[in-house]
């Protein structure tokens, strides 16, 4: 009898713990949410809830893909609530998980945020599921919104990033090279020869900090540098070469040849220790220390004025005569999920394009504003140069983001082989043509 009682007790305990487990797991998710909410709303949660019910606006969930600005995003949410009474919950994905993977899981679990981040070529994946934001006030203040052929205006630009050949203006001035003159292959060649000859005098290791290592930096060569072939010299809305590429993987061989010659020059004048097996950290550190005159990254590689003791700027990849543009635009966008809280998202976007939000995003998060009426100057050392290109209209689009997903993993190897000397310029062109055509054929 005692035994039986014991077993009943034990079984009861087991059942109770099971039930407890079940309910706590449900609890944790809710408490998690409230916790993020409290985080975002700082101290005013109770007051906020009353305003919330009063204004009747449901909270909006935003999935942020930039972990480095998480704190600023939380501050943004707090400010939003303070000014409008609406609740914005910011969830940040980053580090090892990328947002698009996480979103797939969230979609399968029916746990979609109202606003999330996508890159331009991911719009097709979400076809028919994103809200059309056309006609909203903010769309009149920027030319950078993402427009999809089927879904309309879907993407809110939260930042603008630029890429070209970043330069160290002090070194160029010392060597007597005017960056404004670098708009033709010949000018580039002459500049490289001058700089290379004055290596010791300038105290540099090499002219270019260019790294074609494919394993960890494939995104740099395969997406960003390759993007110059697609866009350099073109107006922002000119889609000639990306259209050609997306038409079954065709390339313009003459243009690619010129591009290849230019990359060949970069290979020749690059630091051999960096070119083939370097890392992003070494590349950026070398540029910051003044070891390289040029770097093949964008404004994200030097974000704070404290990082560098010299003036930074951008020079175009002038692989054809007269190319004078840098690539500038939003690398990714915020979109509103059509089955989510679209009105809440729209209200947030309109507020976010305004002054107080831009203050946080520009001054605290170090982003560059895509809005015409933004009064804040970004702190980014590249901003001045970047802005001069944008205001003069000399910028091209980020159409490289519209290429077929994963293409960069193939093309980056061609850059690497070219850097190693396994391919010559013609070999680069023909291999590129074959690799791209094969990838599109799959």
């Amino acid at each position, binding site marked *: 009898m005692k035994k039986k009682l014991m077993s009943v007790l034990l079984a009861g305990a087991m059942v109770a713990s099971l039930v407890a487990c079940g309910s706590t797991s449900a609890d944790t998710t809710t408490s998690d949410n409230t916790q993020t909410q409290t985080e975002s709303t700082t101290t005013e949660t109770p007051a906020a809830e009353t305003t919330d019910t009063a204004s009747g606006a449901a909270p909006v969930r935003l999935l942020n893909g930039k972990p480095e600005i998480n704190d600023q995003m939380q501050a943004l949410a707090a400010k939003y609530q303070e000014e409008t009474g609406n609740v914005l919950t910011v969830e940040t994905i980053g580090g090892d998980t990328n947002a698009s*993977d996480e979103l797939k899981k969230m979609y399968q679990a029916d746990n979609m945020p109202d606003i999330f981040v996508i890159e331009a070529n991911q719009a097709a994946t979400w076809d028919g599921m994103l809200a059309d934001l056309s006609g909203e006030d903010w769309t009149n203040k920027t030319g950078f919104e993402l427009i999809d052929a089927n879904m309309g205006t879907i993407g809110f630009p939260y930042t603008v990033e630029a890429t070209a050949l970043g330069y160290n203006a002090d070194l160029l001035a010392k060597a007597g090279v005017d960056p404004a003159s670098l708009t033709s292959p010949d000018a580039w060649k002459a500049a490289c020869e001058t700089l290379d000859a004055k290596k010791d005098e300038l105290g540099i290791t090499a002219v270019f900090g260019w790294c074609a290592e494919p394993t960890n930096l494939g995104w740099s060569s395969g997406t960003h540098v390759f993007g110059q072939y697609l866009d350099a010299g073109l107006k922002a809305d000119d889609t000639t070469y990306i259209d050609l590429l997306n038409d079954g993987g065709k390339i313009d061989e003459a243009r690619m040849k010129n591009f290849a010659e230019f990359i060949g020059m970069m290979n020749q004048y690059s630091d051999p220790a960096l070119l083939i097996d370097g890392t992003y950290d070494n590349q950026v550190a070398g540029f910051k220390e003044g070891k390289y005159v040029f770097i093949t990254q964008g404004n994200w590689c030097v974000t704070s004025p404290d990082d560098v003791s010299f003036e930074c700027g951008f020079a175009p990849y002038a692989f054809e005569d007269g190319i004078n543009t840098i690539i500038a635009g939003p690398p990714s966008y915020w979109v509103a999920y059509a089955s989510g809280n679209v009105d809440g998202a729209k209200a947030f976007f309109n507020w976010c394009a305004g002054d107080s939000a831009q203050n946080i995003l520009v001054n605290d998060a170090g982003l560059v504003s895509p809005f015409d009426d933004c009064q804040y100057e970004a702190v980014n050392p590249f901003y001045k140069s970047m802005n001069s290109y944008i205001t003069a209209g000399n910028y091209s689009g980020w159409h490289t983001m519209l290429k077929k997903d994963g293409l960069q993993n193939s093309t980056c190897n061609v850059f690497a082989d070219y850097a190693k000397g396994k391919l010559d310029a013609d070999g680069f062109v023909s291999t590129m043509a074959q*690799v791209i055509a094969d990838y599109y054929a*799959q």
Partner: protein
Amino acid sequence: MSTFSIGRKAVSFISLIAGIVLAIAGLGLSIAGTGNASRGAMLIGGVVLFFIGLYLFPTLKHHRSIINFIFLFPLLFAFMVTVIIPLILGIGYSFTDWNGIKMTGVVGLSNYTRMFKQPAFLWSILLTFLFVVFNMILVNLVAFLLALLCTSKIKGLGFFRAAYFLPNLIGGIVLGYIWQFIFSNVVTKFTGTYSMLSDTNTAFLAIIIVYIWQYAGYIMLIYITGLNTIPGDVLEASAIDGANKTQTLFNIKLPMIAPTITICTFLTLTSAFKQFDVNLALTNGKGSVQFLGSYIANGTEMLALNIYTTAVINNDYALGQAKAVLFFIILAVVSIVQVRISNKKEVEL
């Protein structure tokens, strides 16, 4: 004349029926997405009630089987949920055009025909087989030699055993990054050229080296155990008969540890096939190679990594799933064949 009271019968049947109803209702609420807060409690309560009913079920003949079932259930349930159901779903997905988000239709066998038309995938299969062959031989050889060393009478035995086993405790990803640093910053100082990881052939060699370094210590431990189980009297008898060291090794020790060799080859074979983390961290599959007349950009990408890239990076989940099904079949066949062959040999020896 019944051995069970009416009360017990009633309790049993009522709990069984109520349990099933509650569990189904709870599941129904969840599937319908009503967000009813008590649906979890309903489901768990239902399942528990069902088991109480089952336990009290008025039977003497099947009571023992029922108890067995109740005790086995948690394990079977976990196995179903984590292995069997995903396997079936996965096979199902491979016949569709699922991209991770939506599925517009069933495409039949086209994913399977498409994957065999990709030279990059065929290269991955070939490379994986090469890797398996190299590894199965080299890991076992190195591990066996280390085991011989660690069962001999040298000084500092404990230190050597620990030192050889230690790499196995480091995760593959971390290991990959450490060795990436070694290959591109240390080895280059001696060779004077660029990193081994930059060329497909040398990068493949590099992966093999790292893998042996990681795995040989673990296999060594198993060999040590095997060598220690050889009865002392057999060795003594052979020594008296005048067998020298080589004869003892090849004619006594090796045949005696045949079962250990089976286990070790099996372990290295399957784990080499499933190689993923070192591959990902060390080269991420990069490297160029000319294969079937075309330039392939995934020169060091093995099967598991190829599946991952297809699904996650290229957003082609259905194709990745089809490749995974093939991977499963290959792995199953190879393992079964290998075990069969080894078992026969053990009997013969």
